């Protein structure tokens, strides 16, 4: 048992820290700190900075342009990025499609698409969920039919995150309507500029535009856009659900959130004293902090296991469940700590130079509402419990 990082890992951490101090633009870090939405330009600028350093595709093997990091190094990188308020890497091309192409794609597909993901030529989004296929993803209905050298796609995808910026979408489509539901699905790449595609924004609970509906009407794409084998797309979907998901516990983000709660509770007054001296509220913070402290170690234990065994186990589902619950609790505490100062809708109070709470809390309530998504997306926490039931409890 040894919980400390090795000398090499510590040196790596210092290297990452120094890089972030020098290269993370203050304007971007402060946008992240404020909790508002980032512009596409900011995300692209940050990707380009990381790509120049060779640190963008953190989970790709070296021969495809990844940095060749160990799971612990990836963890350190993510931890340091959170600490410095760097934006989260947009995952769809880099952490989702990239590994899929590396595992299932043809040499031509790899040679064509991977460099374009790295240099930012193509912005990818994910076409999985449908109005009738959420947790029961395999019941998806969007169909792709062969017509000569083309697939003809009809249907609808939804919850398409940042699809408004996307050049391409990777889709799960039904290609054999007669097969059992998991067996007739294929993984197909679609250029968003193809005629017949319409993207409509979905306004979320806090008012933000993050996700979209994507409609497909007789959308024609080349046969060669199929990844892997026809009707074997479910294998790819499962690969993505269970493959390397470092950072799924969101420990770094929860550490940010805990710090934020404390800052607010120290500067907010209740009964003539800082809120943090109120034993009821302090007890709530303390319980969340203890849970998070345990989660840090749980996360490291799983990382260590992944490093030893070459792949993470089904325990990542436990990380997702508990990690999101802790993060949501902290968001709730921050909102409650602000009290009425959390009430103004972001951007509505523009005159009088009025401050309601400490700096960077304008989007606080919006973040609380937005973050309810974390226990729903990426396999809802209920689906994660089903996975653990099967894999770990063997029931």
């Amino acid at each position, binding site marked *: *048992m*040894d*919980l*400390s*990082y*090795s000398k090499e*890992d510590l040196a790596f951490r210092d290297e990452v820290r120094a890089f972030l101090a020098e290269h993370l633009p203050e304007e971007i870090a402060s946008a992240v700190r404020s909790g508002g939405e980032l512009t596409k330009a900011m995300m692209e600028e940050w990707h380009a900075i990381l790509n120049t350093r060779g640190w963008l595709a953190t989970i790709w093997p070296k021969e495809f342009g990844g940095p060749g990091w160990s799971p*612990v190094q990836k963890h350190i990188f993510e931890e340091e990025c959170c600490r410095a308020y760097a934006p989260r890497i947009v995952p769809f091309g880099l952490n989702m499609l990239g590994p899929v192409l590396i595992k299932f794609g043809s040499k031509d597909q790899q040679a064509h698409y991977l460099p374009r993901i790295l240099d930012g030529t193509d912005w990818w989004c994910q076409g999985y969920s449908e109005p009738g296929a959420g947790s029961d993803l395999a019941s998806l209905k969007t169909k792709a039919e062969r017509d000569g050298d083309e697939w003809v796609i009809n249907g609808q995808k939804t919850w398409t995150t940042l699809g408004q910026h996307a050049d391409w979408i990777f889709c799960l489509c039904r290609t054999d309507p007669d097969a059992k539901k998991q067996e007739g699905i294929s993984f197909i790449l679609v250029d968003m500029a193809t005629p017949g595609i319409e993207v409509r924004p979905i306004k979320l609970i806090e008012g933000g535009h993050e996700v979209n509906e994507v409609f497909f009407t007789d959308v024609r794409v080349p046969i060669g856009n199929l990844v892997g084998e026809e009707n074997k797309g479910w294998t790819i979907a499962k690969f993505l659900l269970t493959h390397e998901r470092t950072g799924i516990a969101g420990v770094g983000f929860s550490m940010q959130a805990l710090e934020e709660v*404390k800052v607010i509770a120290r500067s907010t007054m209740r009964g003539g004293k800082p809120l*943090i*001296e109120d*034993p009821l509220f*302090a*007890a709530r*913070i*303390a*319980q969340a*902090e*203890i*849970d998070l*402290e*345990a*989660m*840090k*170690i*749980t996360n*490291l*234990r799983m*990382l*260590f*296991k992944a490093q030893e065994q070459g792949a993470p186990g089904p*325990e990542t589902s*436990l990380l997702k*469940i*508990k990690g999101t619950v802790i993060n949501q609790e902290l968001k709730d505490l921050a909102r409650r700590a602000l009290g009425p100062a959390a009430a103004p809708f972001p951007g509505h109070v523009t005159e009088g130079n009025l401050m309601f709470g400490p700096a960077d809390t304008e989007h606080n309530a919006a973040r609380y509402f937005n973050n309810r998504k974390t226990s729903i997306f990426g396999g809802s926490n*209920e689906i994660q*419990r*089903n996975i*653990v*039931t099967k894999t*770990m*409890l063997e*029931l």
Partner: protein
Amino acid sequence: MDFNLTEERQMLADTLGRFLSEQYPVEHRIKVAYEAPYHDPALWDQLVELGALYALAPEDAGGMGGSGFDISVVFEALGKALCPEPVLGALMASRLLAAAGADQEALLTGVTRYAVGITEIDAPYELDQIATVATAKGDGFTLSGRKSTVYGGQVADVVLVAAKHGDGLGVFAVNASDANVTGYGMMDGGGAAEVLLDDTPATLVLSDAEAALQDAVNAGIVALCAEAVGAMEVTHATTVDYFKQRKQFGIPIGKFQVLQHRAVDMLTEIEQARSITIKAAAELGGDDASKYASMAKNMIGRAARLVAEESIQMHGGIAMTWEYAVSHYAKRLIMLDAQLGDTDYHLSQVMKGYAA
């Protein structure tokens, strides 16, 4: 970073695990834990021979271990077997004797049995509220006061007592035969004693002992947390196994999602409890030992209650019976909260760090 046990500790864990599962089947445990002297003296001797106590003390104190991880390996094995042997008192006494630089061969060889008296009825957890007082008399001291729920006190030869001494606290050795000791069995099995001191002769072991007492408490907390983790794992495994055997409405109850998800939530909390115990073990003896011990004991308190209550509920009536092992695991998991600081007490300790 390495979450594997060292070869030596793995061997110790295997040896203890094998010994306890062979020699300490649950029927035997239930019997000895509830009949005076509330443990099995023959098995205690064998446990000592296996080196369980040596693992608790560092080499310069004559032991072979003494780190947080040595302690957690021993107590996790004890927890899995629900073993009521009075090892906790030996561990905490060993920490105090080591702090005093006193010889502890008699403790480690099991020749002299030690218990530690810190708790008082009106000061169950707080060192600064201790009322028992030491008075100088001739060359030595006498103690007056009442030490409560002294774990293992029913069979101790010597009780190390924390008492007010000068401006601070001292640790004093009291021969059990000199004090008024009332032993009894406990709700969750195993024994304790009320130790009544009335001008009772005592030997000073250590003065200005606050830090040493806190260290002994921290070590005891790591031990209790590890014990709970072992007991929770067995309880959870038993429950999941029962899910597969027990049929209602014509199917195994483990097919019901409402039970499946609750079993997953238990598992999540057990993993979290294991994690914070590892952290507290790693920090034991360091500057932040008390902080992480408090975090661990708080989380263990919550997790243990969840596992105990949910396991009983999901078993149904059978876990309400004396003959079914889960009822005994549940009692231990609930009652250890009141040892060395409960969930609320340790939460308030963590909160203290927020002021200023």
